[in-house]
């Protein structure tokens, strides 16, 4: 690689590059914004490393940890809430220690651009007692990854590399280095180290505390912790992207202590820095993670007294919080309408939610994915969304609550997608059969992991590498569990969709519905694309077509109108129209699947 050339990379691309340069050999992840592109880029190095999409984050961590036990450097990556799923093996790996270097990347999402919460995963490092590394731009993402592997091997511990959306998805210039091929030690069985029986765990428990002492000492001199002394008036301690914001918000003569290795904290370094400045600020995004520990050590500082502890920061927010400076802005005299995300025109989920939206006695537990948008008005066809794979099990709880409280007239549906089915929906499907739930499990199989940008999963027949992989038919899984009536339906055919729902509810034996039509954005499939037109003479302006919630239809002068640049000819609106006023150009075709 030409080492002097600079490359403009996102933080995610740089993490992948860092893993490559560090000689990593086995990598496993489950996609989730803002972490997804790490593995989409990692796979470019598939000649020298193995990278895969795992069914979920727990599996990813276990696979990567297994590889570490096998003495090769390994990586697992996930979004912040994925760490909740993977927490079990992470905590035990911390006790056992590692074989070769083992790094877990957590991509947090302050302000919840694409997430259900903004949990601050720095706390996981402290909770699991593993070291924490926080890069603040793409160059650091690459360089810190390499240092993280050194730390992991030197101290015999998993390392948590914590990113945030703005670190993941911001581009900055990066200098490349060569990949370091590492000699792999031959594998030898080591029962006391890697078998976590209570007797072994009690030994590991003591070793863990000894290791943390060593890591505390390392933190004091880590190259990732940098003092920029510019004078004794004001000092700022910061980490991650908040450092970049603070650099812009504070004047030139401000001293900085930038923490790239942020747990265990280098308290002596912090104490020495604090002693050299008159006023000390701690600028961090989300929780007062650094501040609480600094204050507990008896060091005076200003932190969340002024800096917001919610949502992401930016230079303007820091400037306002610290110096009370209001920015000069101009507000045009014109109201704007919200533009929430919506199911795309032609989205296969539309027909399913349209049919379910018509019944007031339906209770629908949803899940995380594009189909979460089935909650949006006017479909409003969802009662709850909690987490990946939760659609079936939350539905089970709802149905048991209705049984226990005499509200038996309610019909409960659990909804998951194809990727979430394999992620953790399968266990919910087992729960419903095993404990006799009055729930219709529905798998919205659009043949891809949609919302995160089209990643493959065990149901698609392809692997991350692009190679053909085993395709696990969802209906076969459900049948093997004991769902004797698995109905497979094309949601774009509203009559068939309605019949599937009616049949499932009337079924004498356990029933499930696989709602199957591929996402229109999948590039490897040839889709049947057309255009629909409204016959303005037949249209009576009843607005029934608006109830399908398609961005391509709106009213103009009292009649429905279809935006031809957006319409893809799915005909769901045409089927919803009671007056036959909408038709697909060239005939009513294409309402059935290919």
């Amino acid at each position, binding site marked *: 690689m030409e080492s002097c050339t600079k490359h*403009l990379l996102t933080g995610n691309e740089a993490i992948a590059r860092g893993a490559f340069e560090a000689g990593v050999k086995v990598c496993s992840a489950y996609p989730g914004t803002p972490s997804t592109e790490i593995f989409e880029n990692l796979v470019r190095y598939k000649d020298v490393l193995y990278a895969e999409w795992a069914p979920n984050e727990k599996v990813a961590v276990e696979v990567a940890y297994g590889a570490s036990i096998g003495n090769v450097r390994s990586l697992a990556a996930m979004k912040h809430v994925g760490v909740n799923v993977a927490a079990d093996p992470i905590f035990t790996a911390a006790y056992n220690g590692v074989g070769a270097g083992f790094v877990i990347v957590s991509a947090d999402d302050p302000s919840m651009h694409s997430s259900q919460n903004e949990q601050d995963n720095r706390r996981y490092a402290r909770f699991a007692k593993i070291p924490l590394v926080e890069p603040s731009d793409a160059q650091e993402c690459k360089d810190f990854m390499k240092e993280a592997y050194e730390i992991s091997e030197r101290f015999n511990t998993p390392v948590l590399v914590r990113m945030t959306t703005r670190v993941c998805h911001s581009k900055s210039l990066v200098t490349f280095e060569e990949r370091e091929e590492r000699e792999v030690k031959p594998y030898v069985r080591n029962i006391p180290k890697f078998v976590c029986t209570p007797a072994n765990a009690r030994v590991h428990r003591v070793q863990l505390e000894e290791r943390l002492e060593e890591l505390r000492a390392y933190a004091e001199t880590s190259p990732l912790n940098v003092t920029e002394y510019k004078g004794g008036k004001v000092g700022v301690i910061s980490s991650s992207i908040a450092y970049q914001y603070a*650099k812009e918000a504070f004047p030139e003569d401000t001293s900085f202590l930038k923490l790239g290795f942020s747990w265990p904290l280098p308290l002596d370094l912090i104490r020495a820095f604090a002693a050299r400045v008159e006023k000390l600020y701690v600028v961090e995004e989300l929780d007062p993670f650094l501040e609480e520990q600094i204050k507990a050590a008896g060091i005076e500082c200003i932190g969340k007294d002024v800096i917001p502890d919610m949502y992401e920061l930016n230079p303007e927010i820091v400037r306002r919080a610290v110096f009370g400076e209001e920015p000069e*802005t101009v507000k045009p005299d*014109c109201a704007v309408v919200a*533009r929430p995300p*919506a199911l*795309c025109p032609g989205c296969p989920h539309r027909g399913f939610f349209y049919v379910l939206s018509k019944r007031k006695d339906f209770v629908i537990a949803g899940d995380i994915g594009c189909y979460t948008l089935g909650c949006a008005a006017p479909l409003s066809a969802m009662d709850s969304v909690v987490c990946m794979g939760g659609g079936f099990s939350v539905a089970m709880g709802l149905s048991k609550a209705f049984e226990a409280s005499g509200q038996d007239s309610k019909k409960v549906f659990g909804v998951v997608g194809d990727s979430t089915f394999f992620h953790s929906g399968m266990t919910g499907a087992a729960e419903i059969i095993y404990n006799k739930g009055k729930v219709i499990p529905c798998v919205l199989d659009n043949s891809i992991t949609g919302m995160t940008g089209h990643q493959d999963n065990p149901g698609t027949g392809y692997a991350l590498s692009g190679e053909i992989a085993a395709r696990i038919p969802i209906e076969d899984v459900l049948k093997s569990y004991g769902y004797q009536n698995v109905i497979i339906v094309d949601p774009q055919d509203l009559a068939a969709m309605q019949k599937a729902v009616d049949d499932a509810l009337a079924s004498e034996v356990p029933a499930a519905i696989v709602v199957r039509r591929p996402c229109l954005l999948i590039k490897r499939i040839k889709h049947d694309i057309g255009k629909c037109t409204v016959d303005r003479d037949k249209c009576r302006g009843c*607005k029934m077509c608006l109830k399908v919630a*398609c961005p391509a239809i709106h009213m103009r002068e009292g009649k429905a109108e279809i935006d031809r640049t957006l319409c893809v000819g799915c005909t769901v609106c045409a089927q919803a129209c009671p007056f036959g006023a909408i038709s697909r150009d060239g005939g009513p075709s294409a309402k059935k699947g290919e």
Partner: protein
Amino acid sequence: MTANTKSILLAGVGGQGTILMSKVLTAGLVSAGYDVKMSEVHGMAQRGGSVSTQVRYGEKVYSPIIGRGEADVLVAFEKMEAVRYAEFLKPGGAAVINDIEIMPLPVATGAAEYPLGTVEAMQHSFSKVLVIPASGIAQKLGNPKCMNIVLLGALVRAFRLEAIDWKKAMGETIPQKLLEMNLAAFDAGYAYGG
């Protein structure tokens, strides 16, 4: 500090191509020797929602994002998005606006009305506002998706960014089979921006 850092804010609707335009912009700025940072939005926000991408360049850039009142230029891919993001523009800042309306779902379903006078309100608030029928120009060129590069051409002309070799930047970022079409789109936007 970093007073010489310039910030360009691209705002539009998910799927309109703000990210590709910012890729070309950053490639050009990097080749001109600037320190560059760029921030984009993925995931949930892309599904037809309002999206923004930010490009910052100068001698040394720290933050990849800006707050209110900090953008030098706002490029709005849709009229109402110009108004939505106007508060991020400096009072003396400039705007390039694609002259089209895309109905958000609340308007399509009849729950709200698309606002009147978006462009006029922008022109009243900012002295430098260029309104360009970029979607129409791209349509005439035969590929409506080139609208983003039409806007880039207009931006380059209107804000005197000609010192940078944009055609080379496009060559580095746009697939070969689409390059010719996009070069034509750039020229058309450039001609309009004068």
